């Protein structure tokens, strides 16, 4: 039986949910998809997996309630995309803009609920979601442990990559971060990554692709992997 999957945006740019639509023909083969882009959705229903996109504006109590309700009604909660998982560009929001100047602070959804898996990316490659859902059925995907570890942190960016890996002398020069950066904010100089700081939007994609960073994060966070069948590892 296909898992019942909710895809719900809480106020982002729509890049994440619409990129997921590009993989719709594959997704409908492995899951029963419920999305506002396909028709009416009801967040009072129970779901096997809920995928939340977009940042959470903590100045809007209704949005916090929606995220809490979705958490309560879903067995597995995935924060999909940088805004939802690690804050991303909306961490720079400072409010003051009409017609809602009071909308001042945006945070990842993990600020108010426990998240099982976080997938950074602006937007993530939508095939990642297909792989993760398949992994949640079998427990065999290496992505599970990585995204479960990222769910334990509230921020990730090129600055973290520099601090934890490059400036610590642990960079192996594989170039995965450079290839993954959605703003071309990373370059390779003398076989080490270097950050063009004014281009970093704090999406955290580089960290999630770095083999060294993810190993450190898994070691530090010791994440629990939760599967669709209810078992945990």
């Amino acid at each position, binding site marked *: 039986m296909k898992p019942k999957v909710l895809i719900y945006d809480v106020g982002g*740019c729509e890049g994440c949910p*619409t990129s997921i639509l*590009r993989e719709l023909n594959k997704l409908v083969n492995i899951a029963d998809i419920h999305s506002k*882009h*396909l028709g009416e959705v009801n967040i009072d229903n129970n779901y096997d997996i809920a995928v939340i996109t977009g940042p959470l504006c903590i100045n809007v109590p209704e949005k916090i309630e929606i995220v809490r309700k979705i958490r309560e009604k879903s067995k597995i909660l995935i924060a999909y995309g940088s805004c939802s998982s690690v804050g991303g560009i909306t961490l720079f929001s400072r409010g003051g803009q009409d017609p809602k100047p009071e*909308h001042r602070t945006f945070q990842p959804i993990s600020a108010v609920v426990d998240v099982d898996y976080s997938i950074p990316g602006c937007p993530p490659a939508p095939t990642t979601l297909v792989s993760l859902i398949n992994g949640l059925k079998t427990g065999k995907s290496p992505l599970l442990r990585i995204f479960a570890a990222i769910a334990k942190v509230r921020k990730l960016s090129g600055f973290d990559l520099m601090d934890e890996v490059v400036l610590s002398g642990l960079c192996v020069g594989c170039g995965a971060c450079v290839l993954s950066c959605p703003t071309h904010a990373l370059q390779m100089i003398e076989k080490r990554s270097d950050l063009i700081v004014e281009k970093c939007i704090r999406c955290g994609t580089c960290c999630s692709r770095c083999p060294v960073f993810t190993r450190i994060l898994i070691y530090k966070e010791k994440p629990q992997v939760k599967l669709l069948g209810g078992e945990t590892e």
Partner: protein
Amino acid sequence: MSHNTYKIRDLFRIGGEAEFLVLHKDGIIVDSYFIARAPVRGFEKMLIGKNPIFAIEAAMRICGICHSAHGINAAEAIENALGIFPPLNGVILREIVGLLNRIQSHILHLALITPDLVKPELKMDAIRREVDLLGMISNVLAKFGGAPSHPPNIVIGGVESMPKQRYIDDSVKTLQQFKQKFGELMEFFENENNWSERAKILAETEFRPKLLASHLYYGDQTNIDLNKIRTVSVEEFRGNNSIPKEAKGTTTLIALYGDEPVEVGPRARLALFWGFNDRSLIGVQRARMREITMGIERILRLIDELDPTEPTKTTAVVFRRGKGISVFEAPRGLLIHYAEINAEGRISFYKIVVPTMFNIPIMEIASRGIPVECADVIPRLYDPCIPCATHLVEVR
């Protein structure tokens, strides 16, 4: 008014979160209010004090649907402020990226509105075909823009680099396949035997608002009077006392041209610059689909004009004090960015006027006289983009 009842409908299958409140009498809509519910992320305020290089990356993230339009507009507003111009290759590549984004957005919208337009038993097959086309056009955008959304190749001074020749050759093949597959889809949609009852109502309803566009493909501020553009709150537009309490609290403003509502977008572009004359409501959708075909043909011509021996960006970028304006025809219509840079080379002022702000009063007027059961299809027809619309402030 006492005979009317209110009905709030959450709008599904649109870009973002909104409600449509309709007032109807005997089942016919007499008035309506489009209410955005998305939080205001405040990009214009976010950009103050930032490096213009960051401004391009941030502006593209205002919207995940018309990302390239915002990126191109931000780059051109900053270039205008700095007094620099991209080389010809850069301009051509930008137009290609902008048109790919337009087609990508139109195809995505077609997938969202298909259940309204065709018989229920036909919708899933059509949506699957549209999702395939969405994947094809996104792959081409990735080759020219550097990513299928928020394309990082758009930079101040032009476009980062020319795609490798084999990527260009692959793209041409993909675009030709796309054109053929989309042509088959057009025939399917034009066949009235496939139409839903809603599509027939849209075809029978004439709607002739004033139209505004600056260019058929790109954007040209000399074709419009920027001084006539004004943004107002819903309360100012409607009169505070006349708005039902259920319609208050929208997170967006309204844009007017010469103090009047104007329709922007595909039909406005084609009517003003190409001779398109379908004034039925379904004409809005016909124009959008026509733009897809025209966009593909235009891109194929532009690719032939690229010169791989010439640069794609200017390297003479020096940040200094200046003011700039850029006008671009985004997928949904007229998009305007205003940028000011201070003596330290940082953004000191940033404003954006987006097409959905023009089309909000148009949607509300277009809904009048429509059966209330069809209320949700009117805003969907105009393809409102809420992430964009919640980032507008009053223009100086």
